[in-house]
C-alpha cells in the first residue's frame, strides 16, 4: 500500500515537472481509465482526473467463487451514466443501475435476485490543472432509498483524489487515492464498511485505441488488507464521438475473495 502510494506520488511529481507547452493530456478521452469496480453499485469505479461531458452505458460482471469456503457470488448489471462539465473546473454526473442480476450460493443454498437501482450522484472538481497533468477531487454518493428493495436502506460512496498526467509520448498515467464507504440499514440492524484505496494505471495510446494496465491496493473493507487489484483495459474509438471500453480486474491476495470483475461499455462524448 505504502509502496504503491509512493510510486504514484513520484509519477505525479514527475508529470508536473515535465509540464511544457504541449497537447492537453485530457484532449483524447480514449486514454481515460476503464472501470473495474468491486463494490456494489460501482461506487468504487475508477476514473481519471479529466472532466468530461459524456454519456455511457456499461455492462458489468463480477464473480466470487470460493470453493473451499462454500461460497459463490456472481452477478451482472447494466448501468447508464452521464457526466457533464460545468465550466472548466467542475463536473457533475449521475449513474443509474438499470438492472442488476445476482446469484449467490452458500454451500448448496442458491438464490437469485433481479433488481434495479440505485441512483449514484457524482461530482468532480479539478484542483490543479496543466496541459500535461491534472489533479481532481472526485466524489460519488449513492442516493439512499433509490433501490427497489425498500426494506433495506443503503448508501455509499467514495471520495478520492485522482491524477492524470502524461508520462511520455503515447503514455498516460492515472493515479488515485481515496476512501470508499457504504452503509446499509434494515429492521435487524445496520452495517457500515469503509475501505482505503490507492492505485495507478498506465495507458498506452496507439491511434484509435488504448491499452491500460494498472494496479490498486485496497484495505479496510474486509477488516484488514483487502486485495491487490490488477487491472487491464482496452479502449477503441468508434467514430468521432463514440468509444468502446473493456476492462478486467483481478483481485490478488487479501481478504477480498472476488475472483474477477469485468466491464464492457460504450461511451459517447457530448
Amino acid at each position, binding site marked *: 500500500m505504502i509502496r504503491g502510494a509512493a510510486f504514484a506520488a513520484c509519477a505525479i511529481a514527475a508529470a508536473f515537472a515535465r509540464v511544457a507547452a504541449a497537447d492537453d493530456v485530457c484532449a483524447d478521452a480514449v486514454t481515460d481509465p476503464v472501470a473495474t469496480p468491486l463494490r456494489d453499485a460501482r461506487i468504487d469505479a475508477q476514473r481519471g482526473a479529466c472532466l468530461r461531458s459524456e454519456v455511457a452505458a456499461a455492462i458489468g460482471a463480477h464473480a466470487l467463487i470460493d470453493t473451499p469456503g*462454500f461460497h459463490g457470488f456472481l452477478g451482472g448489471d447494466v448501468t447508464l451514466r452521464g457526466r457533464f462539465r460545468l465550466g472548466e473546473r467542475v463536473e457533475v454526473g449521475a449513474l443509474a443501475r438499470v438492472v442488476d442480476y*445476482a446469484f449467490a450460493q452458500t454451500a*448448496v443454498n*442458491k438464490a437469485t435476485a433481479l433488481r434495479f437501482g440505485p441512483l449514484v450522484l457524482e461530482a468532480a472538481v479539478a484542483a490543479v490543472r496543466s496541459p500535461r497533468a491534472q489533479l481532481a477531487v472526485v466524489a460519488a454518493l449513492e442516493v439512499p432509498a433509490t433501490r427497489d428493495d425498500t*426494506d*433495506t*436502506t443503503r448508501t455509499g460512496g467514495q471520495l478520492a483524489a485522482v491524477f492524470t498526467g502524461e508520462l511520455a509520448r503515447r503514455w498516460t498515467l492515472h493515479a488515485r487515492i481515496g476512501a470508499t464507504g457504504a452503509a446499509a440499514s*434494515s*429492521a435487524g*440492524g445496520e452495517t457500515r464498511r469503509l475501505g482505503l484505496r490507492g492505485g495507478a494505471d498506465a495507458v498506452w495510446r496507439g491511434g484509435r485505441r488504448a491499452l491500460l494496465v494498472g494496479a490498486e491496493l485496497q484495505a479496510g473493507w474486509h477488516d484488514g488488507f483487502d486485495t491487490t487489484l490488477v487491472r487491464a483495459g482496452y479502449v477503441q474509438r468508434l467514430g468521432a464521438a463514440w468509444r468502446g471500453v473493456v476492462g478486467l480486474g483481478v483481485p490478488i491476495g487479501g481478504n477480498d475473495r472476488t475472483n474477477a470483475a469485468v466491464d464492457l461499455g460504450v461511451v459517447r462524448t457530448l
Partner: protein
Amino acid sequence: MGRLIAVAVAAAAAGACRHDTCLEGKCPAPCAQLAFTCAAKPMYAGRAADAPVAYRLLHGNAADDDTLISNGIVTAVISAPGNANDLAPTGGNLIDFGPAGGVDDLTITYQLSGILPDDAFAYTSISIEKDAVEQGDVVRVTVRGTLDGRRQVPVVTQYELGPCDPGLRVRSELFNGTADTHAWMIADTSHWGKRRVVPFSPARGQGYVLPELSLIELADLWVPYDYASGATPAAESGAYGAVACDGGSLSGVNDLEISALGSPMTLVEPGETLALERFLVAAGAGAGPAPAIDAVLAARAQLGGGATSTVSGRVVAGGMPFGGDVRRASIVVRVDGRPVSAVVPAADGTFAATVPAGGAAELEVWSFGREVARVAAGGGDVEVPLPATLQVSVTERATPIYAIVALHPADEATRAAVTGTFHGSGLACAPWLGPPQNGSPACNRAIVDPQGTELEVPPGKYRVYATAGPEHTLAVAEVELVAGEVTPVALALQKLDIVPAGWLTADLHVHGRASFDSGFPDEDRVKTFAAAGVQVIAATDHDVIGDYSETVRALGLDGRIAVMGGLEATQLIPWLDVPGEDVPRVIGHFNFWPLQRVPGSPRAGAPSDERMEPGTLFDRMAPLVGDGGVMMLNHPWDEPLFGRDLGYLRAIKFDPRRAIVEGDPANGALLRRPSGQHRNADWNLIEILNGADQTEMQKGRVLWASLLAQGFIAAGAGNSDSHSLSDAQLGWARNWVDAGTTVAAFDARKFDDAVRDGRMVAGNGVIVLVEIGQVGGRRRGLGLTPYVPVAGDSVFVTVLAPPWVPVDEVRLVTSKGTEVLASGGELMQPPDPFGTAGTVRYRASFALAGKFAADDFFFVEAGLRYPLAADLDDDGVPDTTDNNGDGVVDAADVEPDEDTGPIQAPPDPTDPAHPRFLVTRVVPGAYPEGFANPILIDVDGNGWTPPGLPAARKRPAAAPRGRAR
C-alpha cells in the same frame, strides 16, 4: 426512471418509520392476526422441573433447567442455551412439544440458514416474560445469539403462547452484518431420524410419499408448501403442523430423516434482515396428522389462506366399526387429487378431517398396508376387508416364553394379496402387519408374550416361524387364515446346547425410543431382549443415557435380563478437517458403558460430544464409565448417513495397509492425544460385527487385523445396533461372554472386565470356541494376555450353530493373512434344520508348532464364505460386492452416481433349499458369521511384540489429495 423515482420516494418514506424488530429489542407479536377463544387454564412459563405434572410431556428430553411453557393445551420446552441437543450447536431450541400432558415425539426443532455448520442459529441467551403468566396473558420466550461462530450475523427467535393458542407463534430474525452476499433462509429444522415422525406433505404427488432428499440438490428440492404436518403412526402419539403467518407458504423439504421449513432461499445482501413468522401446532393422539392439519388450516383461514370444510365418515369391516389403529385403517384425504390431510379413524370407525374448501374431496383408505378403497368423501360408511385373527403362542418345554414370530406368505397368491407399505412408502412387507419402525406388530413380525398374542392379519396362507434366538430351535407352522375367523397356532421351541456353561449372551449396541432415530416403545424393546434370548444389554441410545430399568422391572424381567446404562456418543455437527476432504467430517459413533442415568440433566447426564476428537471424548467419558468401563469404537467403516460419518476409521481415511506413525496424514491421527490424556486410538473394544449380515465384518476384520498387527490391541464385539423390530433383529449379532458372573447376581465390573479382555466370542448365529494348550492337558481359553507356547501345544477350535443356521467355512486369521481351516464338506451338517442335533459343525485342532515363527496374533472365524468383494477405490478395505452376479467385481457392480459399492449380502433367497432360506425367514438379510477374539502368541516368552504389517500389504503414506481447508 419514473418508476425509480417513485420507488425512491416510497422507500424514503418507509425508511423513515423503522419497523419493530426482535433483533433491535422490540419484537412484534408473531402471527398477530390469529385469535383463539377457550376456557383458559392457568399459564405456565418457567423451569421444566417446576412445571405442573399435568402440563408435562411423556418421553420428553427436558432437563430441569430448560424452560417449559404451557397453556394447558400445548406444552413446549425450550432448552437452556447451555444445553445443546442433537444437531444444534447450542441450546435455545424447541426440544419437546406436544399436547399438554401428552406425548412428545420431537427430538429437536432448531433454526438454520443453510446446511453448513456455521449456518446454524447458536443461541447464547434466553429471556422469559414472566409477568404475563401471572396476568394469564401471553407468555414469551426469546432466545438470542448469532449464526454459529459468525458474530456479525445476529439471530433471534421468539416463542409466544397465548392462553387459548393450540400452538406456538414463532418469529425468527437474522441480520447480515457481514460484507458478503449470501444465499440464506430461515428454516425450522426438525430431526425425525427416519423411524419416528412421518411427515405428510400437502403437495401433489406427495402426501406420505416424499421425494428423496439429497443435500446436494437441496436448492431444487426447496419448494413451497401451503402447510406441513407429520405424526408418528403410534396410538399414543400426537401430530405436528406448521403454517406461515402471512397466510402464504412455508418453503423447504420434508423427509423421514429431517424436515426443514421456512422462508425461500433468499439472496441476503450486507445489511439486510431476514424474518420468518410461523405457527407451530401439536394436537391429537393416535389420529394421524389430521388433528394438527385441522388446527393449521383453521389458522390459515384466519390468516387469509382460504376457507375450509370438513370431511367425515366411518370405516367398517364386516359390517362393524373398524378403526383405532393405523394398521386397521388410515385415510389420505385428497382434494382435486392433491393429498391434503390424513387421518386414522377412532376405535368406533369414525373420522373427520379439515380440508381446504372448494374442491372434490376423495378418500384413499388403506388397511394393513394396502389401498383398499378410494371413494368420494360423502360422510357415509367406507367398507374395508375384514382381517383374520391369529392367536399365537410359543413354548419351551411346555412353558410359555417370549418369542418373535415372522409371517411369510405360503403361496404367491397370498403374497400378491398381502404385500403392503405405509401408504406407498418405506419398507414393503408381506404381510404388512404394522408400520415397520413402530411397536409390535411391525412389518411381518410380532413379539409373542408368554400369555400369547393376537394378531390381525390379512386372510391367506402363511408360514408362521417362531424364534427365540440362535440358542433355540426354529419352529414353523403353516396356517390358512380366514377373514373374521380366529386361528390359534402353538409353536414349540427347544433350547440348544451351544453356549458354554456360565457364559452370558450380550447385545452391547441397542437403541430404543430415547434415540432420535427410533420410535420403538420401551416395553416392546425390553420384550425383544427376552424374545431374543439375550441376557445382558448395554443400552446405547444416541446422545442420551438410558437403562430401561423401569420397564425391565415392570415386566418382571429383572432376574432374567441385566441392563447396563450406556450411551452411543453420536457426533452430528461436522467440524473435523480430514486431509484430502473438501467437507468437514464427524468422528462417528462410540459406545460407552456402564453409565448412570442422571434424570433432570441434559441428555440424562451424557456429556456433550460435539466437535471433539475421540481422545477428548475418551477423556471426558473415562471418569463416567470408571476404570472398568468400556469405550467401544462402533462400526468403524460404516458409510456416512445424511452427510455424517458413522465410523471413525472411515472418516479419517485410515489405510490398513499403512503403518500407524506420526506424520501419516490419516493413520497418524490415531496417535494424537487431543486433550493430553487418551489417544484417539484408545478405545478398548471394537465392533467387528454390526447387524445380521457380514458387511461390517467383511470390512472391519481388515481394519482389526491391521490394528492388532501394529500393537493396537482391543477385543472385538458383535452387536445388533437394533432400532426396532424390523431394521435389525435384536441379538443379531451378539456376544457370548465368559463373564464369571450371572444375571441374577450380575456384576457389571466382572462382565466388562471379560469383555475388555476379549474373553468372548461374537456372531450372528455362529459360535466359535477356541482354546490353546495341550492335547489332554492344560488349556487356556480366550483372553488378551499373551500366551507363551510350549512344545506340543495345539489350538482347539469348535464351531457351533443352531441347525437352521448355515456354516460352510472356518478361517484362521493372523498378521500374515487368512487361512481356510475347513470348508464345505469338511464341516458337519445337521440332519434336520428344525431339530436339535448337529449343532457342532466343526471340531478340530492344529499344532501351534510351525504356525508362528515369531510373535503374532490369531483369531478364528466361521460362517458362510464371504461374498466376492473388491477394493475398487484402493483404500485397503473392500467396498463392493459382485452385485450383478457376473463373477467379477468391477465398475458394473457399482450403484449409479457412486464411485464404489455397495458391499452387501446377497438378497434373501426364495428357494427353500437354499442354505440361508430359514435363517432369513426370521432374520432378514442374515449372512451368518462368527469369530472368537484374538489370542496373542508370545513365541519366546520375552513379551509380546506386535508382528507389524506384512510387507506385501504395506503402503507408503500417500500425500493428501485435493485442497486442504
